[in-house]
């Protein structure tokens, strides 16, 4: 295989697998930038995958090919509402945010399967009839060289994810909302003295994390797995969390990290069929994404500074 052929294999695969992680990591950015730790991304993503699939299954006969797209919106809404649990516990009730996030993960896993069993009488759903397909982007996919690498056999959701990262960056760094969100995560009391409603901003941050993780989960289920089982979401949320930290709580950084994960993973898969990588024991290729991430953090990415007030419930007047 030539390098270009290899890239034409790896890059689309990376973009394909990165999309759900990007969305979920962006959700994490919203929540943690507002000062609320979100270990619960995994659960929120799972809930999104769950609602995404059952919505598609329910409406596909009447809505048709648009159903997965509608389902993504429903999943966003559902996970947004689900994330309220985390918000109420960790903001209003001042629960330990890590604890609450862990509870979200347990709850999402238990509740979704419980409901699946209740609704369908079995432990997993059928496959959806309409998926989010990989497409050749009209026009662009015919471009020489980059057409095959960047615009062929990639679902639209991957481009939407990248676009979303840019939009989120703009919102967080260029708008009053973003400035206020960040101020609440860094120094809530300062924000309070400036008349910003800390509690409200944090609720918004957490709910947005639910919305984005829900989208991420739904995209995973509707573009990759095609159905929902207990194992559909197993670790992707944690990978998104890692991406967010790796990306230093920055939307574009998180996106870059998610793409890096996707790249390393597809390299490890494709590697088994690339001549000079073929002889390496497969376990090395399989662990490569994880080891590379650690090395990257150790070597050149440097220290990540979390938002200052993260994890600390805001209590008016407390120093």
């Amino acid at each position, binding site marked *: 295989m030539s390098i270009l052929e290899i890239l034409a294999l790896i890059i689309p695969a990376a973009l394909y697998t990165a999309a759900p992680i990007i969305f979920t990591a962006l959700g994490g950015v919203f929540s943690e930038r507002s000062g609320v730790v979100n270990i619960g991304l995994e659960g929120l993503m799972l809930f999104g995958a769950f609602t995404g699939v059952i919505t598609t299954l329910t409406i596909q006969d009447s809505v048709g090919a648009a159903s997965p797209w509608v389902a993504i919106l429903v999943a966003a809404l559902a996970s947004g509402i689900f994330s309220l649990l985390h918000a109420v516990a960790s903001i209003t009730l001042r629960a330990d945010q890590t604890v609450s996030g862990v509870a979200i993960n347990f709850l999402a896993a238990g509740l979704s399967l419980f409901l699946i069993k209740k609704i369908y009488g079995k432990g997993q759903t059928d496959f959806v009839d309409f998926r989010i397909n990989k497409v050749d982007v009209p026009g662009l996919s015919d471009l020489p060289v980059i057409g095959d690498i960047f615009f062929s056999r990639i679902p639209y959701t991957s481009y939407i994810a990248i676009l979303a990262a840019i939009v989120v960056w703009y919102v967080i760094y260029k*708008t009053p909302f973003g*400035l206020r969100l960040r101020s609440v995560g*860094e120094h809530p009391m300062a924000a*309070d003295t*400036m*008349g910003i409603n800390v509690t409200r901003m944090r609720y918004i941050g957490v709910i947005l994390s639910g919305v984005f993780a829900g989208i991420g989960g739904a995209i995973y289920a509707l573009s990759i797995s095609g159905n929902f089982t207990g194992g559909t979401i197993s670790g992707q949320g944690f990978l998104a969390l890692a991406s967010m930290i790796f990306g230093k709580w920055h939307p574009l950084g998180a996106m870059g990290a998610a793409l890096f994960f996707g790249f390393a993973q597809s390299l490890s898969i494709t590697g088994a069929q690339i001549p000079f990588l073929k002889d390496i024991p497969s376990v090395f290729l399989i662990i490569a994404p994880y080891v590379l991430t650690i090395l990257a953090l150790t070597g050149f990415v440097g220290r990540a500074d979390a938002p200052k007030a993260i994890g600390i419930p805001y209590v008016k*007047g407390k120093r």
Partner: protein
Amino acid sequence: MQEYVIEMNNIRKEFPGIVANDNITLQVKKGEIHALLGENGAGKSTLMNVLFGLYQPEKGEIKVKGKEVKITDPNVANRLGIGMVHQHFMLVHNFTVTENIILGSEPTKGGKINIEDAAKKVSELSQRYGLSVDPHAKIEDISVGMQQRVEILKTLYRGAEILIFDEPTAVLTPQEIKELIQIMEKLVQEGKSIILITHKLKEIMEVCDRCTVIRKGKGIGTVNVSETNPDELAALMVGREVHFKVEKQQATPKDVVLEIDQLVVHDARDIPSVNGLDLNVRAGEILGIAGVDGNGQTELIEGITGLRKVKSGSIKINGKDVTNLPARKITETGLGHIPQDRHKHGLVLDYSIGANMVLQTYYQKPFSKSGILNYGKIYEKARKLIEEYDVRTPSEFTPARALSGGNQQKAIIAREVDRSPDLLIAAQPTRGLDVGAIEFIHSKLIEERDNGKAVLLISFELEEVMNVSDRIAVIYEGRIVDIVDPKETSEQELGLLMAGGKREREGVL
């Protein structure tokens, strides 16, 4: 007709278990600088937080320009023209100056923050009041004095007519204090009114028109500053007479304990901050280091105590070379250290006050035997120190976090002095404390001196350095530029030396 811009009548504010404000009345005239004076924990900040809408009072009324108002949150205060410069700065460290100022009322253009417009407005404001700042600098990169200007600009940006300054001078250098006072005067000329909280009676005497004194949550009264003097104010505040002049005998210096030779220490950005410094401190003397903040004091202390690597030069304690030894080795050689930042370095706030008392000695007998702690002995020690140093705490098991700043400081001093180190480094030991606590700490330092210990005092407060030290070393750009006798030097002269010696400068406070 309105005599007062602000009237707070019979304010009562309770916290669980404590009445922070008990029937306090405060009336501020338009265009005056009104001092609010009281011991640590008297309830000053609380009263101001009530005025600013951060707290809701249980009882009492607030009138702004004669109209009764309910200040339910800071937004309401802002609208009423009340602005507050908080005791602990309310700045987001990784935002720019402009971002901090506009936060909450951002000018936008098409949904996007119009940062250029805002920066221009900030520049204009800062010029108008002589508060020079760089609108695009990040807070974490600018000095404390500069940060305070940002705090002031925040209130002005919102069009505040009544400004509250909560202990603004505690963190400033003499120069900065002088500048601040000029700024305040300018603000008053513009028709604004100021409430100033400070523990420094001298400042009150210098700039304030009237002064309201509160003690233990109760209003004691309001006096015209022109009709009173520092002694009377102090007595009003504490409820007894206070001695300002520290009583001390002539020092009898003996052998050299600390010997610093050609010391070079770099700061966090790897720039030489201490640059070829020589200094000796003898047993039985207090050597004060005077200097403007940022001339290498922090790095000097960190170098001596082993918290920062020394680039070159040597440090000897009792003749033993301790250069670049681990911090613990240096401590064991005979060093006591009252750190500048008591929350960051001095205490583990989540540990009980008892556990904090053995922070330097927990691994030694009798507190620890073959690695096993003896909590009986630890708390016994703690009880003794609490008693001896009058640390006000419910018990030795109370978390250090729950103590007031003054009592936290006393605990640190108890711990460090009790080890009876040959060299005691005291960095800003009285920052933010009331006169009672200051008196206590100064007397402890002198007691140590009289016990034949060497004391190195670093302070930005000239008055403190002048009062307590036996000799004063002036630090400038990482070097000791002169050593003077406090009895033969005026604050004026010292200020000149601190500013670089030869250059013509007006004297400082």
